[in-house]
């Protein structure tokens, strides 16, 4: 989150070298999150928080009636798709950034050698607009968190940070992933991000 903000700041302030580094670190974090979504703790897994249309509809019904019939550990069915959409746009935008070319043509993305100057400039513009869309989704997500905090008196941020949610009956608590997976997945992600930052060369 802080890095996304930093990416925005660096792009707005002509700090293209910092922008590129920040983007490449973000590539590593996103790769980590994608792998963690498959092998990580139960609440981080995509299979856990991505529900079908029926699950989402049922949850909206519960929200309307103002009560939840069962407690939710992890992302709720609506928030889960919000997370997926943000992650998807972030992946798209980082991918575009790898091919983007700046106006001076002297600080292009690591894979921009594969596209022409004009194509790279066009990609840079789409990169910009995808980011603005992502920004809108982030605002929506934060607004929803605020709604839960104020209207429903449900603090969603604490459990996100600590992984612990107090006093929920009949809910399955989070199952952490074996601890050894954390450094392994982190190392794989860091290596992958490094290779990408080098334009695909080791």
């Amino acid at each position, binding site marked *: 989150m802080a890095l996304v903000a930093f990416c925005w700041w660096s792009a707005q302030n002509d700090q293209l070298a910092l922008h590129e580094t920040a983007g490449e670190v973000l590539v590593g974090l996103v790769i980590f999150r994608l792998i963690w979504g498959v092998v990580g703790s139960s609440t981080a897994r995509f299979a856990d928080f991505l529900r079908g249309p029926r699950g989402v509809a049922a949850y909206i019904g519960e929200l309307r009636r103002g009560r939840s019939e069962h407690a939710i550990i992890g992302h709720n069915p609506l928030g889960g798709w919000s997370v997926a959409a943000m992650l998807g746009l972030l992946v798209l935008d980082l991918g575009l950034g790898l091919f983007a070319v700046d106006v001076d043509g*002297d600080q292009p993305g690591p894979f921009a050698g594969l596209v022409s*100057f004009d194509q790279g400039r066009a990609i840079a513009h789409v990169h910009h607009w995808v980011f603005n869309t992502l920004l809108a989704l982030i605002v929506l997500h934060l607004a929803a968190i605020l709604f839960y905090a104020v209207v429903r008196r449900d603090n969603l941020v604490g459990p996100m940070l600590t992984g612990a949610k107090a006093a929920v009956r009949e809910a399955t608590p989070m199952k952490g992933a074996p601890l050894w997976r954390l450094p392994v997945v982190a190392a794989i992600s860091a290596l992958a991000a490094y290779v990408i930052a080098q334009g695909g060369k080791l």
Partner: protein
Amino acid sequence: MKFNAYWLVAGLVLAAASAAVADNAASVIQARQAHYKQIGAASKGIHDELGKPAPSAAVIQGFAKTIDTLAPQIPSWFPPGSGPEAGVKTAAKPEIWTDAAGFSAVASAFATEAHHFDDVAQGGNIDAIRAEYTNLGKACFACHSKYRAKED
């Protein structure tokens, strides 16, 4: 009466001229952008070549020549009336004309740097080219940061 007829003719000429200028502004801006894209593409070409395991000095020399040829022409691409007031999409800021001295200074600094870079490129030493390329980028930026509008 003769006096009025002169004024009429003068007015007509002026009106025709300003219509031509407005028409002309669009083509001036288009030509300017096409030229800048040539410079940008050449710059990217140098960057791409320097990123290769064994950069070719000859390829870089070609791009350096392109930039060196175009750079001194830059002031001529900005005739009065070819700014945002032309009603055509352009990132050229009004400061180019209101701060003409400042613009002229960075433009000529860029031309000097482009020429110097060309000299270094003709020398064929890749390490020297790589070092000088950073300065070329700074010379682009010196003008863009002040006289080119941000995209938004």
